[in-house]
């Protein structure tokens, strides 16, 4: 007997060991090495900062006391004799780029003719908008794009942090800038150079993009893991390389075709993770989707802009109101805004091609899509990307059914500019005339929407979007994307209820069977006992 118990115990422990070791094996095998050699190599490569081979402050040509910025450009070209050709073939200079757009064919588009959801468009407002043109003297659409003397080298290459373009000065520098100091400081562009325009689009810091904030010039790793001062401290041009002044990268607020893009993969490859499953996500999910959990991490960005509210005056004068965070909630010249900080992106399918609302296009749908990012789950080249969706309303011509280009900026009262006179009729008439388009005289306001792909403010990997933020039944980040099966989010409802009822029925059947067994056994025992008791208690005869 003792032996049997002994064997029994031995066998029991054998089974327990088998079960525990199976589960233990699962735990061992699923674990992965955390040392990513690819990433370490990249860190090593970019930790070495190049030392410039020329110190421009020592060059004789730059020792002059420059009177005009054009003199500086001439000095630059005295050594870099052909560089202006490179610059003048770029969209930074031309404000347009030829590209193939589905439905339009090869078309030229750019800041010249693309409308946006912020200050609307450049036409008739060049003098103000040209603060972000790499040239001098763009006062109207008749700017001479062939004059190399007007190329602004300094806005990109100033390393003194002194250069500043003047407000509404057609691209000329502020009068206080010491051009000689700037010229002698030049070098490779820094974040502050690129940011002087790209962070201030739409009339203020971080207004447009949401992921390009002046705070990136000096931020922590948590804000941007690449640019963080306590991290790799990369400059923009580390990724946006610019061979022959052809700068890699574009944004689909103005760009259209899938070429010359700056991508994460150019450094990180398409298999950056140690986990195969994560790498596999890359075929349909962009890197940004998981690695940019939120944007506008430091300063707020505009999420909504209603032009229909513009023009209210107090005592005949324009005024401004601020929200609790100190951002403009209302401006008589622009309308009302909604700002947000630490925004979770929206997500869309995108295949790298886009169309835009070009000045003169008819309105096809409401809200008017200022840009259309093409893509769908069924398009093999599409990936899920994070976007900032900027909504609002704009003025449009009711008869011609197209968005209107108002003249916003004006030198002085009475020249029909909205920011001076607050009269929409006159502003639109003047703007459309300058744009070469007819205006019916009847205007209204129409809802508009614009999509801004979010590419910067990449978080450290520990803060990237977790699996369960998308793979969840309710309120996931991808809840709005439909047309495909997402494990953990989707399920076959019929099958689920089939499974549920099968489980219930099986349990009922098993318990029912067991109950009948137990009851019948009790009944049988009773019956047997009765017989036995009858035999024993047989009455004496």
């Amino acid at each position: 007997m003792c032996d049997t118990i002994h064997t029994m115990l031995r066998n029991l422990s054998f089974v327990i060991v088998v079960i525990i070791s199976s589960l233990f094996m699962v735990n061992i095998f699923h674990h992965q090495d955390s040392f990513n050699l690819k990433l370490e190599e990249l860190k090593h490569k970019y930790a070495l900062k190049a030392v410039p081979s020329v110190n421009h402050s020592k060059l004789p040509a730059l020792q002059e006391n420059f009177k005009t910025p054009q003199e500086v450009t001439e000095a630059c070209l005295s050594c870099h004799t052909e560089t202006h050709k490179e610059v003048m073939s770029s969209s930074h200079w031309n404000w347009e780029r030829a590209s193939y757009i589905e439905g339009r064919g090869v078309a030229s588009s750019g800041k010249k003719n693309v409308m946006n959801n912020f200050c609307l468009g450049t036409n008739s407002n060049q003098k103000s908008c040209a603060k972000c043109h790499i040239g001098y003297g763009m006062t109207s659409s008749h700017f001479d794009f062939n004059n190399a003397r007007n190329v602004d080298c300094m806005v990109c290459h100033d390393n003194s942090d002194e250069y500043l373009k003047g407000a509404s000065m057609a691209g000329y520098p502020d009068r206080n800038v010491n051009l000689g100091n700037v010229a002698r400081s030049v070098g490779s562009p820094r974040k502050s150079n690129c940011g002087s325009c790209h962070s201030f689009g739409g009339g203020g810091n971080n207004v447009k993009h949401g992921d390009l904030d002046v705070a990136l010039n000096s931020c922590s790793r948590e804000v941007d893991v690449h640019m963080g001062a306590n991290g790799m401290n990369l400059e923009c041009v580390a990724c946006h390389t610019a061979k022959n002044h052809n700068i890699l990268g574009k944004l689909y607020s103005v760009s259209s075709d899938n070429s010359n893009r700056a991508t994460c993969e150019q450094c990180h490859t398409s298999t950056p993770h140690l986990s195969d499953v994560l790498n596999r996500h890359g075929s349909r999910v962009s890197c940004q989707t998981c690695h940019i959990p939120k944007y506008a991490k430091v300063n707020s960005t505009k999420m909504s802009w209603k032009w229909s509210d513009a023009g209210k005056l107090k005592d005949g004068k324009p005024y401004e109101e601020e929200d609790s965070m100190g951002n403009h909630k209302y401006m008589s010249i622009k309308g009302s805004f909604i700002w947000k900080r630490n925004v979770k992106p929206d997500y869309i399918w995108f295949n790298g091609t886009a169309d835009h609302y070009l000045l003169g296009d008819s309105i096809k749908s409401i809200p008017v899509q200022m840009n259309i990012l093409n893509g769908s789950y069924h398009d093999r080249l599409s990936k899920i990307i994070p976007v900032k969706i900027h909504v609002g309303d704009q003025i449009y011509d009711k008869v011609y059914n197209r968005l209107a280009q108002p003249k916003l900026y004006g030198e002085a009262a009475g020249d029909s500019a909205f920011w001076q006179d607050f009269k929409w009729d006159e502003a639109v008439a003047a703007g459309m005339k300058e744009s070469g388009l007819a205006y019916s005289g009847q205007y209204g306001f129409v809802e508009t929407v614009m999509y801004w792909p979010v590419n910067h403010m990449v978080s450290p990997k520990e803060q990237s979007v977790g699996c369960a933020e998308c793979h969840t039944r309710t309120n996931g980040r991808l809840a709005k994307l439909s047309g495909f099966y997402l494990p953990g989010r989707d399920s076959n409802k019929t099958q689920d209820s089939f499974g549920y009822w099968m489980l219930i029925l099986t349990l009922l059947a098993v318990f029912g069977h067991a109950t009948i067994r137990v009851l019948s056994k009790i009944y049988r025992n009773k019956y047997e006992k009765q017989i036995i008791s009858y035999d024993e208690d047989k009455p004496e005869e």
Partner: protein
Amino acid sequence: MQKVYIYKGFERLWHWSQASLIIFLALTGFEVHGAYTIFGFEKAAEFHRTASWLLIGLIILAIFWHITTGEWRQYIPTTRKLKEQVIYYMSGIFKGEHHPTEKSELSKLNPLQRIVYLSFKLLLVPMTIISGILYLLYKTFDQNNLIVIEDYPLASIAFWHTMGAILLIIFLIVHVYMTTTGKTPTSNIKAMITGYEEFDEEDEVKPEQNELNNKIQ
């Protein structure tokens, strides 16, 4: 009392590790499906993947064992006494009748078990594993390579895999319950643990039973 050695060492190792893996896979699998949260989606999916490779490995070993030992013959289906077996579970069991078939080393499965286990091995498990592998390899390669499985919608792959899981759970519940229908409620489980099953003298394998076994084989 007579002790008969029914379940070999490997068989028991296979049975219990397969049982624990399947239960663990169900636990993590239905979490991935979104039914509840225990490990969190990420861990559940990782565990599920690792456990699935272990199960596939184990099944390959088991197939090898069944072929080399000839034990696969245990699963050859038969209709002989099948009806009696079904009737027994539906009524005889309540009347305290004996099992219509006897267990032996050469024939450890009754006709009903043969059919159920054979379909378990040839239909249910392959369906679940094949759909699972398709799930596992779905869009394995990005644009630098060919995409292996893409045009077959993930929704159907998931449907078949989930269907397998549901049926496996049903099998598990009924299977565990049926173990209590042996000589005593625990005798079958004891046998699967120790390998030995105890028979009363009167239950000793009858000659004709042996004959039947031989015929089947």
